[in-house]
């Protein structure tokens, strides 16, 4: 069998197994039959299975896949393995908007958080676009994005320091979590799913892009256009994910790497595999947060950071 296909199938199996575990394990452990029965309305486990675990599982799949795919798109455009969606300043823009809402307007219902952070993400993307223009080089986008991200991060620190009494809420949101998310939040990330096929449509152009701007242009690819579309997709995917779950870190960095090591850099293979990898990482992270010490639930972002931090250092050493 084709090795890439085999890797893909193994990953599919792993994701399915992790999903099954997510449905079974938690503060209350359920046998598989109880999970199936719990899907029926009126059953005693209906709330736990259908209202809590199933939407959370689907959300982990979509958000994990979105963040990972955004990572591949950004790395494809910037042509740097250390790039990630964070480089665009989108998640920091979303975070700044969310922190302003949490810290300065604590009386506003937290139901507005996804909307406000989505607007923050899109505003950050607009600012990046206005500063760089359509024909900017990858390095200019990267540096501008990093500078903007650093600016938003310092603004976040400023807001939090002026309102220390709301610090804990803000920090909790900034870690990124799937806790308490249900079907309503799932509808909010569905647009991200609609964006995924568009990324598949960009595969060929992204492959050409990897050869360098000159080669890609000679081979008939409109480089600035590809770049714009890929980044716009990455922005959309990141914005939808961050709006609902907060900025869950490192998945957009780790998943593309793992996927590249598994199947190489051809986007036709890379994109499906990276989405599976990202989904798997977030599923496992969320499962870990729920089963390490129930009934304590940690934010999933802590788990991805525990994994991601050392991985990033490993990457840095390897790149050098």
């Amino acid at each position, binding site marked *: 069998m084709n090795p890439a296909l085999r890797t893909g199938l193994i990953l599919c199996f792993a994701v399915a197994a992790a999903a099954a575990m997510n449905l079974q394990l938690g503060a209350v452990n359920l046998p598989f039959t109880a999970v199936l029965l719990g899907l029926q309305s009126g059953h005693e486990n209906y709330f736990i299975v259908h209202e*809590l*675990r199933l939407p959370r599982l689907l959300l982990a799949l979509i958000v994990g896949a979105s963040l990972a795919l955004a990572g591949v798109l950004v790395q494809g455009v910037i042509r740097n393995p250390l790039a990630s969606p964070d480089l665009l300043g989108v998640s920091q823009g979303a975070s700044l908007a969310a922190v302003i809402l949490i810290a300065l307007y604590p009386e506003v219902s937290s139901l507005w958080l996804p909307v406000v952070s989505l607007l923050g993400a899109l505003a950050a993307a607009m600012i990046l676009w206005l500063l760089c223009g359509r024909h900017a080089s990858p390095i200019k986008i990267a540096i501008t994005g990093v500078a903007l991200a650093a600016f938003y991060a310092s603004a976040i620190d400023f807001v939090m320091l002026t309102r220390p009494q709301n610090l804990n809420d803000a920090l909790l949101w900034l870690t990124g979590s799937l806790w308490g998310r249900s079907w309503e939040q799932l509808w909010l990330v569905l647009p991200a799913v609609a964006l995924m096929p568009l990324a598949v449509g960009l595969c060929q152009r992204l492959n050409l892009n990897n050869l360098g701007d000159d080669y890609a242009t000679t081979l008939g690819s409109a480089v600035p256009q590809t770049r714009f579309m890929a980044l716009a997709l990455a922005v959309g995917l990141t914005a939808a994910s961050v709006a609902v779950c907060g900025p869950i870190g490192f998945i957009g960095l780790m998943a593309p790497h793992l996927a590249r090591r598994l199947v190489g850099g051809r986007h036709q293979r890379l994109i499906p595999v990276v989405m599976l990898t990202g989904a798997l990482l977030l599923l496992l992270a969320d499962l870990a947060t729920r089963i390490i010490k129930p009934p304590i639930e940690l934010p999933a972002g802590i788990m991805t950071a525990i994994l991601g931090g050392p991985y990033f250092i490993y990457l840095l050493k390897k790149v050098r």
Partner: protein
Amino acid sequence: MKAVFKHWIIRFWLIFALPFCAVQAQAGATIEMPGFGELQLEGVPQRIVALEYPFVDALATLGVKPVGVADDNAPERLLPEIRESIGGWQSVGTRAQPSLETIAALKPDLIIADIDRHGAVYAQLQKIAPTLILPSRRASYAETLNSELVISRALGKEQQMQTRLEAHQQTMEKFATQLPQQTEIQFAVATPKNLYAHAPDSFIGGLIRTLGLSVPSINRSDSDEVRQIGLEQLLAFNPPHLVIGRYNDANLLQQWQKQPLWQLLSAVQNNHVYPVDANIWVRGPGILAAEQMAADLVSLLGQG
């Protein structure tokens, strides 16, 4: 003759009025929750889950044992007398992210949640059980006492709570007579890195003012309940009495005490700096905690 009459009244009361009272209690309360609609309860809740410490204070005051408490897996954060009163409960995790699965598994018939922390998951809590959502974090002294009253209404024990609140008021008045009136007191919590000063409108600020003492204004607006302050700012409003809540010995004051500025504080010069247990003072505002704090203040500042 009179005795018989009395007897008759008692009989009448036993036969007609008492069952009526029971029916009244069983019909359940309807509670208006601003911004969250109306909570309609069928009967008196028996299995209660409390997601913030002050709610546990209310339950302990009423002698009700919750089945689940979001206790951060650290039961020692509750006042010892509350712990004793409510007995064995199941932890449902942290107050910030309580485990909804554990709550659901307890099959409660009433959940008491905090607007600030749990507003975003209100819809889900409501699917588990009728949920009473109240202000607790950042709530003032009056708001906190009012929340306790609302809880008692949900449990059909409003009369008991009213009586308790009156007793509370009397206790406070008695404590007030033992304290030097109009003395200015600043309460602040020292963590390892920061000092958080509580403003006049915070729970503690309200409590201190109820006791006839005063709290310096530290903010442009008093409704910012808590403010992080530095040593220079503390010196700028130089409170004559400084009550410092500490969670443990590792806190900022150890560093500050070595600084010359610290010695300039009039509270320091006059020996008016008092350490208290931050667990009691900050974590669980409520009737029982307030009485404990007032007793602390009397023993620290009391005039015999």
